[in-house]
């Protein structure tokens, strides 16, 4: 994460306060548990999908409006594993089930990572430093890629079956908690922990964080920031692919625009988190999803605009987002 020496607990306290504050209004503890777990799961999925985007932006000031298409492609590529190995998914064995998901995730990540490399080289490299063109070009890439998905996989929605052991719910007391949501939370936490360790405990992570704070200085010290950036872009695209697999299993139906539909939430998450901050993106995603769930339950009409209200509120409190990156 990119925040400075003193840990800043305020955003985390805000999340806890939101969750606990919602409890009396929701009324029943079991409903609250269900809502909270669902919100956390959704938040984790948003985080996995958006973490790459925020780092890419932080490091090279590049915004990829086509990020959503990597999510869709990840989901569609996962089909290449999920369909032939359907027997692994329907088997009543946790090992085989996780195996097929793991394999699908790896294939999806390799594919989206490779595509990210190509995208960085061909599409983004010529327009460094030109925001207007970046937005236009990446939106164009989005259109073309979405149409290619239609051409390759057909325009009809494709159903995906969730592996057997992840179907259904755990029952804790009166509360029903969907198994897949628990799986999504665990995976999201693992990704966050991995990124946190990678950024804070490795040399390359140190360079990435330094690059986010001050690109010129890192270059002046003799490091090739472009190379680091390509790596981050590839990793970010692969994470979007992983998010796509999760999102596909959650929706259980694939359409080419599924990634694009998430872009609004992703943008809000990285804006309220503070552009460039992984920790902020994590906190922002969870805050966003929890608030959407509680307000959807309590005041359904408000849920429609809860995202925007949250964004305005956070930006009024901290104009640079929850965890501002020093440079911005």
């Amino acid at each position, binding site marked *: 994460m990119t925040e400075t020496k003193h840990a800043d607990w305020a955003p985390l306290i805000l999340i806890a306060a939101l969750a606990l504050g919602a409890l009396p209004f929701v009324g029943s503890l079991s409903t609250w548990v269900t809502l909270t777990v669902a919100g956390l799961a959704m938040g984790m999925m948003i985080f996995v999908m958006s973490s790459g985007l925020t780092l890419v932006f932080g490091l090279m000031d590049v915004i990829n409006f086509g990020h959503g298409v990597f999510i869709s492609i990840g989901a569609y590529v996962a089909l290449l594993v999920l369909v032939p190995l359907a027997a692994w998914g329907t088997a009543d064995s946790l090992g085989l089930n996780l195996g097929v998901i793991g394999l699908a995730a790896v294939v999806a990540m390799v594919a989206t990572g490779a595509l990210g490399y190509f995208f960085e080289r061909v599409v983004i490299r010529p327009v460094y430093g030109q925001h207007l063109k970046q937005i*236009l070009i990446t939106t164009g890439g989005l*259109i*073309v890629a979405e149409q290619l998905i239609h051409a390759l996989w057909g*325009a009809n929605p494709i159903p995906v079956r969730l592996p057997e052991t992840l179907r259904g719910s755990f029952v804790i007391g009166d509360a029903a908690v969907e198994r897949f949501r628990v799986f999504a939370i665990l995976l999201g936490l693992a990704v966050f922990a991995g990124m946190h360790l990678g950024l804070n405990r490795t040399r390359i992570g140190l360079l990435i964080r330094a690059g986010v704070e001050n690109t010129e200085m890192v270059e002046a010290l003799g490091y090739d920031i472009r190379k680091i950036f390509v790596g981050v872009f590839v990793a970010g695209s692969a994470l979007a692919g992983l998010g796509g697999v999760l999102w596909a299993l959650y929706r259980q139906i694939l359409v080419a625009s599924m990634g694009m539909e998430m*872009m609004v939430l992703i943008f809000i998450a990285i804006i309220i988190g503070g552009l460039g901050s992984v920790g902020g993106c994590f906190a922002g995603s969870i805050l966003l999803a929890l608030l959407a769930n509680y307000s959807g339950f309590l005041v359904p009409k408000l849920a429609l605009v809860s*995202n*925007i209200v949250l964004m305005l509120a956070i930006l009024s409190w901290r104009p640079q987002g929850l965890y501002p990156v020093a440079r911005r």
Partner: protein
Amino acid sequence: MLHRLLSGDLPRSHALTVALVVVLVSLAFAPFLFPGSQSLNVAAKICVFIVLAASYDLLLGYTGIVSFAHTMFYGIGGYGVAVAMHGIGATWGAMGVGVALALLLSLILAVVIGLFSLRVRAIFFAMITLAVASAFAVLASQLRDITGGEDGRSYSVPAMLRPSFRLIEDQVLGVSITGRILTYYLVFFASLGLFLLALRIVNSPFGRVLQAIRENEFRAEALGYRVVVYRTVASVLSATMATLAGVLMALWLRYTGPDTTLSFAIMIDILLMVVIGGMGTLYGAVLGAAIFILAQNYLQVVMGKLSAATDGIPLLPQLLHPDRWLLWLGILFVLSVYFFPTGIVGRLRAQRR
């Protein structure tokens, strides 16, 4: 006279002049040149989208800001007419109320979004407008009692504009002057007027300041122009023009729904039109809109034939499938941004030299 009408901003290229005259004449005499309801529909759509693309170019091409909320304003215009006509009745008065309220709402939203996010960088504005527009689209489809939800609203228009109305008993050049044709000419002349107004705006001293901001924000600020104010005014002008385009479309279609006004697909269409036609020149919006709408309606036929002709070759038939027409325009869009950022108009103008 012509010089004044075009605000001194002449096409400056023979080919471009010819193209523009062809578009103008075709649209002006569309009911007589291309009889039939489908071709009249295409002509009306071209008129409306010229206004919509021109108003977007005011932001993108002249001021250098990317907004994804343009369809929101377009939709507000459409829904203003729809809600008023549906709620009050098919009168001109109701339409006036609807249009006035729609303009007011657009104005307020544009000012609020502008002041909130135009202070910061282009990227922020793009993301925030995307978020606001999507929230608005969800709102419009959920507030079923007001907007008709996903189904949208169908309504009748004032008697003069209905298909059964006859202005004169006799036919003119073999075409009877129905309410539909009157509606078409209402759309046509309103679009022409709005386009000339936009041309006036970009060639005014105010328009020059916008271009200065596009070229160098800091220098413009240093020269004493309040960048935030100019940008906000530009986005308000652009929003109100988009609202009026929405009004025209609502009158023409006699239907307003989320898919015809608020969808992200239309936003993409507008972007394609402006960029392919040529950013930073309003004539680009004319050519872009005309080409795009024609492609949307007729390219599919050509592609269907090509797709059938290439049957048997792997993948190619899928790529040439009529539904994939946007793929090819998308590729054209990407190539435009790289290789001819001034679009078709820029190319035509460069040729002369």
